[in-house]
């Protein structure tokens, strides 16, 4: 049975990603070893076309496949994020793969498949569909994390990610089963009605709890964040950039749909869970980041802290999920995700570029004197770090500003104060890297790596985006607000 044509439009980005993913795999055996690097061309075409194909679902909003998917502005916003991430990953990894002598074909295919999975997570209006999207993106990511086969760290990374990730998805699946058992439906809108009619028994709460555990693993929030630094450290650098941005955004999207669509009425059940998790996550990320000496690990812990900031905004929505004002909170999360993806991706790409062959230059002290050796690289990394720290004129500041605003609006005074304290703690370790780059003399001779064109483009795009969102957030924020409105 052929689905109606509109449904195909609504799934267009995923179809493009998967189609080009398979195309790359099909081409792979027919391309001679010397020309393998040209596989990046169909991969890039796939990522760009997939991103562009977002226009099709944007033109045909509505429910697709009997309500399994729901295309709304919210889904479009997330599609733009994950699509952009795919483009950036392909751009930044072409030379990396060549340098590290890794086979490019499978790599690109996996990236495209993972992106398709994330796209499905962004539009899933039904729990099983969300689960399938989660699995598609996760399984591809497990393989990608271990892509440097001969590096023990990469293997360790993949193993840890796989084991813990499987547990997480199992929890998630259990949660779905319980929710189904309690209400007889896995569709989020039916769930909402069931909850509103007072079917929210213990079983449903337990189901919600298990789903939250599963997603907390995926977005790396306390107390389920422990895997993050090991996985991020061991994975190949472009993959780390991917893991820290795309899947996280998609998992937050799924989390938001479940909480804000399916379980709005029982926000009392999850509000405190999110509140406590937000507080724990911020401290767990920031305090651990203080003592890191490896830049990749430090950035990994910092991304945990950022997940905590996002949870603050989610908690803010939880105080008044039905109120019109909750739109500001949801929009804050979406805007934060956009800014976070830009600056985190830029930072990891820069770190990967500076790491050099075999990713050896990762110690913070190895950056001593970088500002004299490679002034533009140092300036660029400083921009990302200052944005992560949340200084004005950068995207990170406005992201944080909107989260603060949502939380103040919801009278979460204590959470706001905890977040403020954390921002200052975080300042210390971001500034430390800048101190080393600008204020210390070089201790060891590093031959500067030539910056490949793809990487340069990624750095330019992310840096420009970081500044653009920091100065003129208006358009993106407008879209985020429409997305938030479309969710209800």
């Amino acid at each position, binding site marked *: 049975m052929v689905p109606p044509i509109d449904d195909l439009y609504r799934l267009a980005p995923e179809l493009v990603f998967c189609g080009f993913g398979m195309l790359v795999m099909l081409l792979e055996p027919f391309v001679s070893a010397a020309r393998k690097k040209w596989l990046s061309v169909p991969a890039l075409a796939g990522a760009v076309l997939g991103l562009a194909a977002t226009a099709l679902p944007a033109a045909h909003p509505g429910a697709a496949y009997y309500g399994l998917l729901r295309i709304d502005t919210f889904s479009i916003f997330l599609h733009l994020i994950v699509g952009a991430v795919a483009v950036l990953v392909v751009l930044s990894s072409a030379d990396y793969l060549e340098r590290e002598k890794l086979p490019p074909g499978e790599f690109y295919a996996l990236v495209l498949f993972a992106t398709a999975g994330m796209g499905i997570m962004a539009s899933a209006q039904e729990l099983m569909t969300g689960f399938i999207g989660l699995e598609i993106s996760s399984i591809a990511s497990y393989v990608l994390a271990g892509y440097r086969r001969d590096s023990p760290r990469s293997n360790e990374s993949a193993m840890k990610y796989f084991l813990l990730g499987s547990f997480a998805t199992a929890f998630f699946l259990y949660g779905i089963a319980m929710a189904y058992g309690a209400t007889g439906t896995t569709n989020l809108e039916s769930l909402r009605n069931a909850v509103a009619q007072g079917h929210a028994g213990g079983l449903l709460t337990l189901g919600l709890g298990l789903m939250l555990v599963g997603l907390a693993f995926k977005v790396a929030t306390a107390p389920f964040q422990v895997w993050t630094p090991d996985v991020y450290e061991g994975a190949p650098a472009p993959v780390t950039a991917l893991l820290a941005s795309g899947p996280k955004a998609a998992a937050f999207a799924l989390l938001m749909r479940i909480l804000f669509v399916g379980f709005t009425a029982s926000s009392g059940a999850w509000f405190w869970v999110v509140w406590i998790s937000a507080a724990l996550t911020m401290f767990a990320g920031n305090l651990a980041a203080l003592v890191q000496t490896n830049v990749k690990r430090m950035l990994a812990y910092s991304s945990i802290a950022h997940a905590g900031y996002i949870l603050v905004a989610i908690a803010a929505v939880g105080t008044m999920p039905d109120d019109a004002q909750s739109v500001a909170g949801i929009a804050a999360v979406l805007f934060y995700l956009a800014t976070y993806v830009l600056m985190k991706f830029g930072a990891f790409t820069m770190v990967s570029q500076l790491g050099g062959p075999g990713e050896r230059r990762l110690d913070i002290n190895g950056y001593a004197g970088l500002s004299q050796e490679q002034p533009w690289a140092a300036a660029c990394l400083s921009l990302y770090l*200052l944005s992560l720290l949340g*200084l004005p004129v950068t995207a990170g500041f406005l992201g944080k*500003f909107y989260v603060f*605003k949502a939380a103040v609006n919801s009278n979460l005074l204590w959470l706001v104060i905890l977040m*403020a304290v954390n*921002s*200052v703690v975080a300042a210390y370790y971001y500034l430390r890297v800048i101190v080393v780059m600008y204020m210390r003399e070089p201790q060891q001779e590093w031959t500067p790596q030539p910056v490949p064109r793809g990487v340069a483009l990624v750095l330019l795009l992310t840096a420009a985006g970081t500044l653009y969102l920091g100065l003129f957030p208006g358009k993106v924020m*407008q879209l985020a607000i429409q997305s938030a409105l479309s969710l209800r």
Partner: protein
Amino acid sequence: MQGPLLLTVITFLPLAGALALLILRREDRLWIRRLALTTALAELGLSLLLLRGFLPGVAAYQFEEYRSWIATPPIHYHLGVDGISLFLVLLTTFLTPLAVLASWRSITSRVREFFLMLLVLETGMIGVFLALDLFLFFVFWEVMLVPMYFLIGIWGHERRIYAALKFVLYTMAGSVLMLVGILWLYNLTGTFDLPVMQALLQTGQVLLNTRTEMLLFGAFFLAFAIKVPLFPLHTWLPDAHVEAPTAGSVVLAGVLLKMGAYGMLRFCLPLFPEASHRLAPYIAVLAIIGIIYGALVAMVQPDLKKLVAYSSVSHLGFVVLGIFAFNATSIQGALYQMLSHGVSTGALFLAVGMLYDRRHTHLIREFGGLATPMPVFSALFLFVCLSSLGLPMLNGFVGEFLILLGTFQQHARWAVWAATGVILSAVYLLWAYQRVIYGDVTSENNRALPDATRRERIILFTAAAVILWMGIASPMFTRRMEASTQNVLKQMQRSTAYEARDSRGAAPRAIQPAIPSAGER
């Protein structure tokens, strides 16, 4: 009144100059210095245009610019200048060329980056004084941290990294809470625009309950008190001042500290009058402790630069005291003291920096008898010291006198305690001067020190001229400040409630300012 974009140009000209520096090759040091100086001087010229166009006796903001910036939440690019910010802008544009000149020879590494940071810093400082939208204000307030951090951290002395980090972390701790306060105020009033917010609060359309007002006051005040710095939040200051390069110290002491006092005057008093009144006695006590403690600590410093740094704690204590005496005279005095401290302490740091350029030390005991090898320098240094300790006819006297006079009218006891600071400042400055300049040349290293060069003479003579001018022509300044300083007190009047305090708050407005504005005519 609508100056066409004058304020925007003044704010962003240094930034444009900074970007222009990037075009020059980093080897062209002379051209880099010249371009930086040209930008700073052009900026000074523009700010003099501002002074010429400024209408004295008008309390409202002038040269206003108002443009929409971010739609949700409504944030505007809103600039304006009044009698309070006018002279602080001038102070900034006056000190920056001096700072550029002072760094002419002493900065030898990464010259381009240095001047770039200095000019970016100038944009940030001017933006802070001109912004009338709380969000915009916060943006400038925070952005300024970055260049200052680099100035201290890259071109500072031995413990520069520690000092730079401490400076940033202290300031950020305060400002993050201020951001929360700003958002909370937005929540209550629905606007970030300062004049609108002010009107809403003043007319009672938005009422803050006491607890909210106290908390909001605290959120703002903490950020400003750290910046001023008010005892016991001052510990970052000696480190930052001592470790910073000369230009950094000049700007830090000259302008950055004033931002804290400016913030109190601009935000704390008008927006939260009840909390200000309630907490004023405690703040005054801290200010007086700061005055005396700063002076005593300055007295025993073996390090000349640290001595000047601690003298700032003492002098800024006067400013805070003057502001929280809620008296037209004392507030005007506080504003005057801010300016004269900027010029005098800036000049002191410049002079100390000249000594450092020669001997690479700040220790007092390394010097002695410098009058013999450096007569011109010694004379000018004395002049600056005298202005800092408040000799009549020089600038320091006017501010301190007005503060003490105004405070005495309100709380005689505060003024009595604070007056001891005037005496102590004479003690530590003259004693240090005596040990450095008079007597026999104690160290052979000092015997052949060159006297002030032409460039250094230009710097010190310019500062001295302004010091003298501010001392004798003070009505020129006060005439332009008057309307705005009185407006602060007017803004503190709420249309409802607070009757009990009205009698007290209204009284000082009847008293004429100590120096009649007619004096100039």
